């Protein structure tokens, strides 16, 4: 049971990481980060079934922080949309080298 849960979690994590690397839409990239966090939650819950309840407590904090991060993140995305009229990160090229 643990193996299946950890494999799923690793898969989710890889999809999330890969998504951030290849997608160019800021909101999709942001969703992929949330996917990473959910992979972590799954791993923590799976482990805590075997080693103790602390992992489940951690999950609650991760979810709360993810919500806070979404609030800040979407605010930043809105503010950058006002400047560029797009959320495609390829267009944000004011800061480079």
């Amino acid at each position: 049971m643990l193996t299946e849960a950890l494999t799923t979690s690793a898969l989710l994590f890889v999809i999330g990481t890969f998504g951030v690397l290849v997608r160019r839409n800021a909101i999709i990239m942001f969703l992929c980060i949330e996917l990473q966090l959910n992979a972590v939650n799954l791993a923590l819950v799976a482990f805590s079934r075997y080693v103790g309840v602390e992992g489940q407590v951690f999950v609650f904090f991760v979810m709360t922080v993810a919500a806070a991060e979404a609030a800040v993140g979407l605010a930043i995305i809105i503010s950058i949309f006002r400047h560029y009229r797009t959320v495609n990160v390829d267009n944000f090229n004011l800061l480079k080298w």
Partner: protein
Amino acid sequence: MDLGNVASLSLFYPEIVLAGTILVLTILDLVVANKRAMAYLGLAGCLVALGATVDLYGTEPTLLFHRMVALDNFSLFFKVVTLAALVGAIWMSIGSGEVRQVHLGEYYIVLLTCGFGMFFMASANNLLMAYLGLELVSLTSYILTGMLPHNRRSAEAALKYLIYGGVASGTMIYGMSWVFGMAGSLDYATINAAMAEGGGNQIALFMAFVFILAGFGYKMAFAPFHMWSPDVYQGAPTPFTGFLSVASNAAGVAILIRFFYPAVSTLGQEGAWAFQALPALQWTDLLVALSIITMTWGNLSALNQRNVKRLLAYSGIAHAGYIMMGLVVLNNDGLNAMLFYVVVYLIMNLGAFLVVMIVANATGREDMDAYRGLAWRGAAFPAVCMMVFLASLTGLPPMAGFIGKLLLVAAIIEGQFYVLAVVAMINTVVSLYYYWRIVKTMFLDEPAPEDGPVAATASAMPLLGALMVLTIVLGVYWAPLLDYTTGSLGFFMP
């Protein structure tokens, strides 16, 4: 000692003062029209908290709040560093023209909250607390970076910071979840006991440590997790950039040392640490490689920068590489040199950003051309100070930076990491080029006709003078600081 929730409060007063200041500022922001007064109140709160932290120094190491937070000389040292950086940043903000455009009330509240998060990064004794402290710092940093209104650079920097930061912290907690699974607990003491027994699967543990290192390394800005730093430094308001460059680095060092030393290593004879979690894998080789890549990458990228803030960002990456050198030797000499360098870096880098701010106030520019003939355009004192800071960043005697680098290199030569020492020396020579190009621009280049006089921001002068004097004094009389850092290596041992 291991205290419960209520009993802990009596040893928690620096944090209570800081949190109280934040709450009072939040309420005052709603009722007071004169937002400039809030800066002075924030400054006063920081100074009171600084006094309280110094007062607590030397207390018997104690675990607070059911083993969540460690109170020991090590955490108190980093709290002092954070508060010093906060005081410097607020002082800079008072004189900064950039900060005047933002909503001042919110700015100071979020800045203080960022410092508050660093307190927990320095003192976390549990992976959960480490994560929460790090996220508190990250979230507030995103907000402060994107705070400049109607400014494309600021918004773009905030978005990039958010994406990199999100990925780094996601990676870090994925590693933490594996450590939790293998050690059976989030508490550092239990993790230590589990590691002493051999931990678990070596490959899995190695991966987990690399993931955690990525999260901490992103705070310290070392390669390959440094990509955010030049963009964020350039886009953020200058006083916050100064704060971020020194305090975020210091907090990253603190959380890294506390996890990789007291939590997963064991202190042996004469200050040598045994990293027993990975007997089969060469952990130090990885750290040596990271350190070499970081300092070389940072210095080479800085070579042809035209924007001074961006140049200082790459120099900050190089300095993260130098600080990393203290980690590889796995003994207290290395850690001591790291702590010493953190303080020295705080003083000289804050000073350099202060000069950047003064020039930006007068000219509205941050590129190298704005510095042409600075010394002959009415800003001789800032120019001389900048030269002192840059000499110190290069590591020239008799500046404080020289002593810091000397201690680090001495530690690694004693640990017989000769290649690393040679690379560090070569890097110092490389950095000489770009630091002294600024000095040359300031003193030897003729001002162009269109370059107007630079009016030095009056309120920043006392801070600038103090930082310059400290840079020189610590270069010739460093014993008190060294005693302080040696005393600060008192960890709460699990």
